[in-house]
C-alpha cells in the first residue's frame, strides 16, 4: 500500500501533466482555427489519464511507447518539450522533427516516445519488435503499443499479439477504448465489445480498467510492466475512456447520442482527479493556482513557438539516407 500523502503529491503532479496536455490541445485548437496550424489534427481531450498513468509507471526512455496519430498527449506525458511540440505542429525549425512529422506522425525518442503512427494498427508489430530487442540487449526495456478500440480489427494487431505471446515479449498492448472508430461506434464492428478478451486467443492476460482514473492506469501498467520485465510476457490492457472532442478538428460528431457528451464530461479524468484531490484535502485555491500555472506555461510555450522560424525549405533534401 502506497503512502497516502506521497500518493497525493504524486496525483497532483499527474493532474499537472494532464492539464498540460489539455491546455496544449486547446491551444492547438485555437491555432488551428486561426490557420497557424494546418491539416488534420486529432485531439486527445478526455483520454489524458491513460497517457499520464502509463508513463508514470514506466522507466522512460529505457521503456518506449508507440502511440497513434492521437499522440500529443503521449508525447507530453513522456516529457516532450512543449516548445518543440508546438513547433512541430506549427511547422517550425524548432519542432520535435523540424516540422517533418506534423501532428500525426511526430516522435521524441530522447523521451521514450518512439513515434506516432498514422496507419491504424501498424505500431503494434513495431512495438513488439522493440520488445524483441529487449530479449537480446539486456536493457530490461518494456515497450508499450497504444492503439484504439477500432484498431483491434486490423490484421497487424493480431499478428503482433501472437508473435509477442509465443516469445513472451515484454510488450504491453494498451487499448485506448473511446468506443469510436473515427465516426463509427466500435460496438457495431465487433461481436463482443469486451475487447480485452481477445487476448485469450493468444494466451495473453487481458484486463479492462477505468482509463479515466490515472491511479488505476498507473498501478495496472506498473504491475503489467513488472510482469513483463520478469519474462512473463505481454499483457493486454483495455482502458475505458471517452473522447470528449471530435475524432479530428472539424468533426461534427453527429454520431453522438443526446446527453452522451454531458455524461462523459462528468467522468473525464481531470474533473475526476480534481475531485479526488479536493477530498484528499487540496483546496479550490490550490487547484486554481495549479491550473493557472500550467495554463501560463502552455501559453508561453505557444508564444515562443510562434516566434521560431518556419521550417527551412533548403534543408528538405537532408536525412533521406545515412
Amino acid at each position, binding site marked *: 500500500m502506497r503512502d497516502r500523502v506521497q500518493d497525493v503529491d504524486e496525483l497532483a503532479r499527474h493532474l499537472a501533466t494532464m492539464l498540460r496536455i489539455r491546455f496544449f490541445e486547446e491551444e492547438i485548437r485555437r491555432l488551428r482555427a486561426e490557420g497557424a496550424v494546418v491539416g488534420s489534427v486529432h485531439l486527445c481531450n478526455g483520454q489524458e489519464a491513460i497517457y499520464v498513468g502509463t508513463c508514470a509507471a514506466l522507466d522512460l526512455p529505457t521503456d518506449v511507447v508507440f502511440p497513434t496519430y492521437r499522440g500529443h498527449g503521449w508525447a507530453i506525458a513522456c516529457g516532450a518539450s512543449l516548445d518543440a511540440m508546438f513547433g512541430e505542429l506549427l511547422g517550425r525549425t524548432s519542432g520535435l522533427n523540424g*516540422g517533418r512529422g506534423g501532428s500525426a506522425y511526430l516522435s521524441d525518442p530522447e523521451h521514450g516516445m518512439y513515434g506516432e503512427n498514422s496507419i491504424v494498427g501498424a505500431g503494434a508489430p513495431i512495438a513488439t519488435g522493440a520488445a524483441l530487442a529487449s530479449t537480446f540487449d539486456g536493457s530490461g526495456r518494456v515497450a508499450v503499443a497504444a492503439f484504439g478500440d477500432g484498431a483491434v480489427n486490423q490484421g497487424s494487431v493480431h499478428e503482433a499479439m501472437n508473435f509477442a505471446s509465443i516469445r513472451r515479449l515484454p510488450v504491453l498492448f494498451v487499448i485506448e477504448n473511446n468506443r469510436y472508430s473515427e465516426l463509427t461506434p466500435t460496438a457495431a464492428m465487433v461481436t463482443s465489445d469486451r475487447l480485452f478478451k481477445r487476448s485469450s486467443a493468444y494466451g495473453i492476460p487481458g484486463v479492462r480498467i477505468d482509463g479515466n482514473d490515472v491511479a488505476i492506469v498507473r498501478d495496472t501498467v506498473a504491475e503489467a510492466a513488472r510482469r513483463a520485465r520478469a519474462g512473463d510476457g505481454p499483457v493486454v490492457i483495455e482502458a475505458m475512456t471517452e473522447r470528449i472532442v471530435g475524432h479530428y478538428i472539424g468533426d461534427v460528431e453527429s454520431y453522438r447520442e443526446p446527453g452522451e457528451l454531458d455524461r462523459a464530461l462528468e467522468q473525464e479524468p481531470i474533473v475526476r482527479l480534481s475531485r479526488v484531490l479536493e477530498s484528499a484535502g487540496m483546496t479550490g485555491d490550490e487547484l486554481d493556482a495549479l491550473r493557472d500555472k500550467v495554463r501560463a506555461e502552455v501559453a508561453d510555450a505557444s508564444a515562443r513557438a510562434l516566434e521560431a522560424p518556419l521550417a527551412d525549405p533548403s534543408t528538405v533534401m537532408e536525412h533521406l539516407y545515412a
Partner: protein
Amino acid sequence: MPEETRKLTYAQAANEALRRALAEIPETLLFGEDIAIPGGVFGVTKGLQKSFGDRVFDTPISESAILGGAIGAALVGRRPIVEIMWVDFSLVALDQIVNQAANVRYVSQGKLTAPITIRTQQGAGPGSCAQHSQSLETFFAHVPGLQACMPATAQDAYDLLTAAIHSDDPTIVIENRNLYHGEKAEVRLGAAPGPVGGAAVRRPGDDVTLVTWGAMLHRALEAADELAAQGVSVEVLDMRWLRPLDTDAVKRSVAKTGRLVVAHEAHRFMGVGAEVVTSVVESGVPLVAPPVRVGAPDVRIPAAPTLQAAVIPSASVIVDAVRRTVQPVATLVQQGV
C-alpha cells in the same frame, strides 16, 4: 437515367455516380470505413445509405477483409464498390488487389471475373503526414489485370467512376481530396457509361506537349497560361487513365510539337512519367529537345507547409520545365542515323 446537367463539386459528382450505379445496377454494393451512416470522412458517400439501405454499409478497420470481401462477392455475381480511405492504406492489403483481384480473369481463362471498383484518394496537403501524402499510381499502373484512373475534374469524377463501375474488371479510381470541395462546375449526368481509357486534350497548343493527370492538371493549366503570355504554346494532355495508358494520344501530340514534359505529384523516380517518356522515345517519334519530367524528388513527404511546398511540384516548377525544352539545347539530343 435521364440526362441532365447540374452544378456540382467534384465530391458531389462522385456521389452522383455512386447514386446512379446503386439505382441502376441492383448487383452493386457499397462498403468501407465510415462510408454509410457517417457518409464518408469527406462526405462523398453522403445520403447513399439512407437511399439504398443495407447495400451500403460500414466496415471494421480491416482493409484485407474489405478488399477480399469485395472480390469474393464479385466472384459470385455482385458488383462491389469499396472505399480505401487513403491510398496509403492500400499497402496493408495490397495482396488482395495485386495477387488476388488482378489474377482472377486471366488465370481462370475468363471463367471467373472480379468486377470490383476501389475508390480511394491521395495526394499531399499542407500539414498532411508522410503516411497520408503519397501518390502511388505507379503501384497500380504496373500490374496487368488492373485498371487505374485519376479523375481531375468534377465531370471525370462522375464519368470515370461510372466507367469503372460498369467495367467487368478490377478498377481503382484514385481521387484527390484537395479537389473534393472546390468550385462547382457544370456536370453532365446520366449519359451512357464511357469506355475505360482515353486521354483528353485540356488545352490545345503547338510548341510543347505537357502530359499530366490528377490534381496536377490544374497546376499544368496555370503553367500553360503563364507560358502563353510568354509566347509558348503548350498542349495540355490529361491522361485520365494510367492503365490503360493512352500513349497514342501522347505520340500524336508530340509528333506535332516535338517537345515533351510530363508532370505528376508522385515521385519522379519510377513515376508513370518514365513510362510516358519511354513510350514516346521507343516509338521513334522525333523529339527536338530532351524530354523533362516533373515530380516529387527523392524525399518522404514532410508535413510542414514550407517543406511540402519545396517538394510538391507547383505551376512555376512546371513553367521552368517547359522552358527548358524550348531553350535551344547545346548538345544534339539525337543524331539521325
